[in-house]
């Protein structure tokens, strides 16, 4: 079984990350709340084919008071072979175990998954992501951004009143990076407005508490 588990993970993730326990302490101790940014996490060939496959999916404009961006439908229902394989990897016992060991949390063996696209003027204002059962919010970045171009995922610390006060950590999207954080009443975060004619593409969603 161990061989199979390693095999599934090895297919998708960089060998550097195959021992999740190594990163648990860092995850739990990170401020303003538990998060990790694992650079070069996804194997490059997988990320390239995933990006190509995602470009075949339809993105829908989403706009409300809090956000403006584009999103695919639930990728768990896609017919695309490459994306299906990735979804199977994400839902696999091996990857769920990996995430459980890394975070110390217990998850259901199903996650939400969708593609997101931010273009010039798109943004997501500050919020906490709290919704029943959500435990980890995750993002696989499939494009590179530079900080000055916007699109950073900003994690905000809370003031004494419990409200978000300032940015403590900026995660600038980098190809193949996996970023995730614990969803809690203080997991205030935002996606900075993209201010150039470039595309910020990612696959993301949530893992749910068991």
């Amino acid at each position: 079984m161990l061989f199979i588990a390693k095999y599934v993970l090895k297919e998708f993730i960089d060998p550097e990350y195959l021992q999740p326990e190594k990163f648990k302490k860092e995850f739990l101790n990170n401020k303003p709340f538990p998060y990790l940014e694992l650079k070069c996490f996804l194997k490059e060939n997988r990320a390239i084919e995933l990006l190509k496959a995602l470009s075949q999916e339809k993105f829908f404009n989403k706009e409300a008071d809090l956000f403006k961006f584009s999103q695919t439908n639930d990728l768990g229902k896609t017919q695309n072979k490459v994306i299906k394989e990735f979804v199977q990897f994400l839902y696999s016992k091996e990857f769920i175990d990996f995430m459980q060991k890394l975070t110390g949390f217990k998850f259901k063996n199903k996650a939400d998954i969708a593609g997101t696209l931010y273009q010039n003027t798109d943004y997501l204002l500050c919020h906490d992501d709290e919704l029943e059962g959500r435990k980890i919010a995750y993002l696989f970045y499939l494009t590179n951004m530079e900080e000055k171009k916007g699109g950073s995922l900003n994690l905000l610390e809370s003031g004494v009143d419990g409200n978000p006060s300032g940015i403590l950590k900026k995660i600038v999207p980098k190809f193949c990076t996996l970023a995730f954080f614990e969803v809690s009443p203080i997991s205030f975060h935002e996606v900075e407005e993209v201010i150039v004619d470039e595309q910020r593409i990612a696959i993301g969603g949530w893992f749910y508490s068991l």
Partner: protein
Amino acid sequence: MINKTYLTKIEEIKKAFHTNKYFPSIQLHNFLINFEELKKKVDKSKFEKETNLLSHRLSKAELKLDILEFREFLSKILNKKITNTTFTVYKLEWKDFKILNDDCVEKPGIDIILDFTENWNTESGGQIIYSDGSGENYTMPVLKNSLTIVERKKGVQKFFKYVNNLAGNGKRQFLLLSV
């Protein structure tokens, strides 16, 4: 102060305002005769920046428009005596917004908006948008020297759309009074 055309058509305006039973509203163009003079006053307002990342980021000031003609005009249109004409002046610049927030729920009422925004690209955001809570939104056009009157029925809330980088150094300014 008020474009004379409107002073002679009060009944028509009242009728137009109430035509939409679900979302009573009206926008009157070229409303002020002395727009430039009032604009100078608005520009000189002592704005204070307010930031609460869970609800809003914007600049505000107060401006009293104690003009009998204006109060009488509003009273006739709305069928109610308007005595307080101290408006909140809003200034929205890049990155400013006001979102819907459960902690700041507005009671039903009437919004009176005087728009002092010049040279605004609507792609920049900053519009006042009314939401009825069921997903139906009404976006008020940004129009220099317009008076907009909106009746907020139960459940209708408003937000100011995020101002994006296309605004550049531009600013969106309007006066708002809720009665």
